[in-house]
């Protein structure tokens, strides 16, 4: 009964947030200087063509009206079509005089559907790597606060967080790909192409895990109930593994939700560097090409995913620590 109430409330809030976000992006795109239509038909196109294209795409109508129509179509599951990309996949636009808006455009939903799985794959692998790096060292640092594992975690975290991800990508490419030839880097022709980008992302995520875990594990170990375990007859090992870690994971979960949007930024850049055909690369190109519907669709989708992930994370945290149910 409680669960249902919580879910309904959070979903309602989430829907509101998604709405706000899409409105914001929608407005921003149309308000910021620069003309998308001109970008599409080419800088050389005569004004009449621009005018006509603009009318057909509905870009000359007042913004609230445009947004209303967009929402209506959205509810029917139609995210519209890309301004720029034709159905056959290639990306067009540029300086030639052309009116690509006449040809059949790729559907936004379709484009997203193609690229999302790859990005999810990248994110999952990066997550695994980050946990492998961060969790053992973080726990060790917390259990031995002040001594060398802690210091190692501290320095490692500080260095990792100072590495610009694009630079690390370049360096790793030079080392592992060019010089040693172990792993391929650019593009995608198989799962192994995910490894290098995932590694760069993992280095970006790891410091957060390290920092949070060392602090929360150390804090929990200072709690009275850990100490009390000894006099109650429960061995220290059992106290640590069954109780301390459980308590320490909650702050990690809590902060994870906040970190999420920063992580997306990393995904964007990493996919761009490695030419990894995921949602991030799609986004970067869409923005640079002023492909409104695509940008809009991606924004709506990503904020929806964020909202869902946040809800899931909160649920898991509340399951572990029932005091959070408020």
């Amino acid at each position: 009964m409680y669960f249902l109430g919580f879910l309904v409330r959070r979903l309602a809030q989430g829907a509101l947030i998604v709405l706000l976000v899409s409105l914001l992006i929608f407005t921003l795109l149309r308000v910021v200087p620069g003309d998308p239509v001109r970008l599409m038909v080419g800088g050389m196109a005569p004004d009449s063509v621009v005018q006509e294209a603009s009318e057909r795409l509905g870009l000359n109508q007042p913004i609230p009206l445009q947004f209303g129509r967009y929402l209506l179509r959205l509810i029917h599951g139609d995210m519209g079509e890309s301004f720029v990309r034709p159905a056959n996949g290639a990306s067009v636009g540029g300086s030639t005089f052309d009116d690509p808006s006449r040809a059949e455009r790729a559907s936004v939903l379709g484009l997203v559907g193609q690229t999302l799985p790859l990005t999810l794959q990248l994110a999952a692998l990066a997550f695994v790597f980050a946990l492998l790096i961060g969790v053992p060292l973080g726990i060790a640092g917390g259990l031995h606060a002040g001594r060398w594992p802690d210091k190692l975690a501290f320095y490692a975290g500080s260095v990792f967080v100072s590495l610009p991800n694009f630079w690390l990508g370049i360096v790793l490419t030079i080392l592992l790909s060019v010089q040693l030839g172990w792993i391929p880097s650019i593009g995608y022709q198989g799962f192994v192409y995910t490894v290098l980008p995932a590694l760069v992302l993992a280095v970006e995520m790891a410091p957060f895990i390290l920092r949070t875990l060392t602090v929360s594990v150390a804090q929990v170990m200072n709690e009275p109930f850990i100490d009390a375990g000894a006099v109650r007859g429960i061995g220290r090992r059992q106290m640590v593994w069954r109780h301390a870690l459980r308590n320490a994971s909650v702050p990690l979960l809590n902060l994870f939700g906040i970190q999420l949007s920063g992580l997306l930024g990393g995904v964007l850049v990493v996919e761009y560097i490695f030419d990894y055909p995921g949602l991030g690369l799609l986004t970067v190109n869409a923005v640079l090409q002023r492909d409104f519907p695509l940008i809009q669709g991606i924004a709506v989708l990503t904020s929806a995913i964020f909202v869902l992930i946040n809800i899931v994370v909160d649920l898991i945290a509340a399951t572990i620590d029932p005091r959070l149910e408020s």
Partner: protein
Amino acid sequence: MQDQPVLLDVQHLSIETTGAGRGSAATRRTLIDDVTLQLAERRVVGVIGESGAGKTVLARALAGWLPDGLAVRAGHVRYKGREVVGPALQGREIGYIGADPTRALDPTVPIGPQIAEKLRAVQLRVGAAEAREKVLALLAAVRIPAPQKRYLEYPFQFSGGMMQRVMIADALIGDPALLIADNITQPLDVTVAAQILRLLRELVEQFGTGVVFVSASLPMASEVADELVVLQSGRVIERGEPGHLVRAPAEPYTRDLVLKIPEIWTSKASAIARSAPVARSDAPILNVQHVSKIYRVRDRTAFNRVHEVRAVRDVSFTVSRGESVGIVGESGCGKSTLTRMLTWLETPDSGSIEFDGRDLRALTARQLRALRPQFQLLLQDPYNALPAGRTIGEIIGEPLAIHRLARGREARERVLQVMHEVGLPVGQVDELPVSMSAGQRQRINIARALVLEPKLMVLDETLSSLDQVEQSRLLGLFERLYQQHGLTYVYISHDLAMVRRVCSRVAVMYLGEVVELATNEALFRDPGHPYSRALLSAIPTLEPHPFDARQCLLEGEPPSPIDLPVGCGFANRCPRAEARCRERSPEAVQRGPQSYARCFMAEALYPEMAQ
């Protein structure tokens, strides 16, 4: 005593800090010095001492659980002949209950499984189902109602008293022969503590354990112990049977300890200068009429419902000029909420509060601000109530600046004058209050309020964190201030002994209501409400009890304020409850002028007592 087998044998025990990490032997401190004591089965030894005497160190040493940085330098602690140190005995033969029950278990795991976990850790062959059965049985033995349901509840869902019972169950689950109870009643309310003590005695009988009862409260230890050991600075000063020790203490320190316990029941106890409320014909300085406050808390189990917490229910009383009125009650009774409303930090949902004839609700913000200097509030915590980083002079002078009453030299004059009045060394006016004691800090608080020349002072547990000596001194100060300025006092407190000393009239609160209002003498002689009676019976005291706790208080805890039952709120713990008590809420029965009790069975007092 000698025919019982010896459980615990402590011989010439000395414990010191190891100074680990600093590397210098010169900084070692001796915390326990040559302590010898013995405990037999089914006996209770009480160890008493003031704070800093080393009680907890000793308790932990007896359990073999010395914290890091401490080590046994000489002597030994033997349990049934075996050395105690080490994990072999803990949780099994020796159980330990500490002073902070709410933080003794993992907050993210339900209590039942945690106790079961402990059982299976100390007795390896116990299976899961069997463990659960044993835990349920023990939860019932410590009188936790509905053990099946509470088995799966989390520590934060238990009140302090209930959690202490859980920890007692946890200590007993390993079938120990020895229990170490370290200050177990310290954080608890008086009536709850009385119940826990009673429970402890019954368990000792039932299970035959020996108990070392460590406490800072001499009266409390005397009630449970067969033998008392007095500890001072780590040394045993005196030992003996409680009655004997109290009547004829041999050592001066013990004599001092006994003297410091305030008397409550003798007629001298309320020999305050103004014991009788002065009959006033003019308007009261504070007039509280039918004040109520409800908090709305979201109901977590439903989507959009709220719980109503009725923190204060229909409270009415008046305070005449120059009186000293006490408002007493245990935690959850609503006195803090009432205090906030008395000083208009929160507004009542219904009812009115008049100060000096003016209805506070009718004032504008500006008028209220202008009126504030006249009724001031003093808080409990002397350390946190003072803003950090300011000198004494600045702290005391700030109210003058806020209300623009004085500036520059004139302000400083007033600050110095008021410092002198409250007994603060005037030379320290430009220093930070860092090294000051609790008592001195409270004086700063008092000075800060006094500089505004108030007519009414509300003291919210102001003296609760001070020791007896400081309390006496400050009470004397209040008396003098009354004589010089005609101040009126309202004391909010849970400390009945203090209220007995200084208040001319007392209001007893329970679950948001004033269940009894009476003169000092009348309340302590012949309380009209069963709760007042229960409260008085639970006060730990060295004198003979006029009220027997066993007869005044039943098992059980106050009902949750969210879920107030119909009828009298005390009915579930009242030994005299009848059917009608559970059906209707009792009205106030007058027992004298300005005295009443909300109970169907309250009879009118002897008329001369009421005056």
